[in-house]
């Protein structure tokens, strides 16, 4: 017991040393709190297991936000910095990969019970893909809406390795009349009356080339908090479908009407996904593909910058058509220049971009960036609003002074 405590303290100490800060016990704040630019936006920075210090949105169930400066590290988000979002407090904290099994059942020819080893024996597929919470940036909704008050750090891109879900479903054999496939993870609600967190994909998407049961993330096992040992990866789609710690796959003959599909994670069925604040009675549809977004990663609002030539670094992504171009404006949108795109890691991943401008001492600059996808979607200059604060993708704006 003493030894265990010692281990935990040492591990947390390692994380704190990494951050260049005094060593402290795990779970203690490793730095002063961070004030996100939101009402009630103060967040503790705490190193959770397998994680560097991240912004604590909530502690039970755990929700951790990636500090935005991490995104300047490159087009792949390190596992120890990847955001965390659980829905149910009954999340297992110990998993034995050797005994973990995934059931495949429902409208199938053969029920299966697969081990992680069984998945590893199927043809492995590697895909770089952005995992973004539906409510990423919810804290910037105007007017504000209840829900997880994320700034822009509930996203990340990783290289995912796994088996195609299709290969598993073919082993099981879909029967005629299959319409959706439902996924459940090993997390459970505290109260029996709370709807268990389950999500479903239409059969076509479940059978798509790129839908994976992933057992590795950036070449390493997934951190437990990101869904060890296996999570669903649905490139191009919001993270709500990327079920973590997946242990149950059920083929359905009717569209899933469980709470998490029928009531939660739905957006207004309008072209932008937005409605007028206060609107009621509108039709809704399950949230789907990621909206096109871009960010500047090497500056932050309020920052003093040096006069002279400034290099701008940023990231962009969309729902899987790939990024066509990113435009940058140093003057609040009066003039725009085409950014230079970085290496292409595939149409689902973060796409790095750069631009440059010359800053004159004493002047203020409003920096904007605007991505256009290969599908022709462009970030809007006015944010679409919806009551759940989902899929925000307005053009980002940043004020700096030289």
């Amino acid at each position, binding site marked *: 017991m003493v*030894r*265990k405590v*010692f*281990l*935990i303290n*040492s*591990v*947390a*100490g*390692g*994380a704190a040393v990494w951050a260049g800060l005094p060593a402290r016990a*795990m*779970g*203690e704040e490793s730095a002063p709190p961070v004030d996100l630019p*939101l*009402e*009630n936006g103060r*967040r503790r920075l*705490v*190193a*959770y*297991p*397998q994680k560097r210090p991240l912004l*604590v*949105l*909530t*502690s*039970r*169930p*755990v929700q951790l936000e990636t500090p935005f400066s991490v995104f300047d590290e490159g087009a792949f988000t390190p*596992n*120890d910095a990847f955001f965390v979002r659980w829905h149910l*407090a009954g999340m297992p*904290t*110990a*998993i*034995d*990969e*050797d005994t973990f099994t995934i059931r495949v059942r429902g409208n199938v020819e053969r029920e299966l019970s697969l081990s992680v080893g069984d998945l590893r024996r199927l043809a492995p597929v590697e895909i770089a893909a952005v995992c973004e919470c539906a409510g990423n940036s919810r*804290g910037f909704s105007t007017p*504000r809406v*209840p829900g*997880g*008050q994320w700034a822009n750090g509930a996203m990340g891109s990783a290289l995912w390795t796994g088996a195609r879900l299709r290969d598993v479903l073919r082993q099981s054999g879909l029967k005629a009349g299959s319409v959706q496939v439902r996924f459940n993870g090993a997390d459970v*609600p*505290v*109260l*029996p*009356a*709370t*709807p268990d967190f389950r999500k479903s994909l239409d059969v076509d998407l479940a059978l798509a080339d790129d839908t994976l049961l992933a057992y590795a993330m950036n070449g*390493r*096992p997934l*951190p*437990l*908090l990101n869904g*060890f*040992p296996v999570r669903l990866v649905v490139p191009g789609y919001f993270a709500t479908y990327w079920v973590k710690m997946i242990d149950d796959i059920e083929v359905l003959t009717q569209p899933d009407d469980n*709470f998490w599909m029928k*009531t939660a994670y739905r957006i207004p069925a309008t072209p932008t996904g937005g409605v007028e604040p206060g609107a009621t009675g509108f039709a809704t549809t399950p949230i789907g593909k990621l909206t096109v977004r871009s960010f500047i990663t090497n500056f932050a609002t309020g920052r003093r910058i040096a006069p002279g030539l400034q290099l701008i670094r940023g990231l962009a992504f969309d729902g899987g058509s790939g990024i066509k171009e990113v435009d940058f404006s140093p003057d609040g949108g009066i003039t725009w220049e085409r950014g230079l795109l970085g290496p292409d890691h595939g149409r689902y991943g973060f796409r790095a971009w750069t631009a440059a401008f010359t800053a004159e001492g004493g002047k203020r600059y409003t920096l904007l960036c605007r991505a256009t996808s290969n599908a022709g979607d462009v970030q809007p200059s006015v944010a679409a609003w919806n009551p759940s604060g989902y899929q925000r993708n307005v053009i980002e704006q940043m004020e700096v002074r030289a």
Partner: protein
Amino acid sequence: MRKAIVTAAVVAGLLGGVAFHASGAASPVSVTLPPAVEAFPGGPEADLARRHCLTCHSSDYVYSQPKLSKAQWSAEVIKMVKVYGASIPDAEVGPIVDYLVAQNGKP
């Protein structure tokens, strides 16, 4: 002995902060989460929030919200009962809403 412990700690640190069992392989993985924040300040008026809200979630779920109106807090509490199955007696819904408005509300 001390050296062995230090080595084990360093190895665990390199592997990313997980407590590995036995072989040191990637399985099984066991983690200990930092304690949840479970503070609802106040006297007896906070007891209902402590008793009901903390069953399923930490108190930072309340304090990280923007200041919500009484109608919004009321909708949240009713959602906890009707959707998530919280067993809050009808007579206690009003006092909980009042407490949440006093803690993190707006007119």
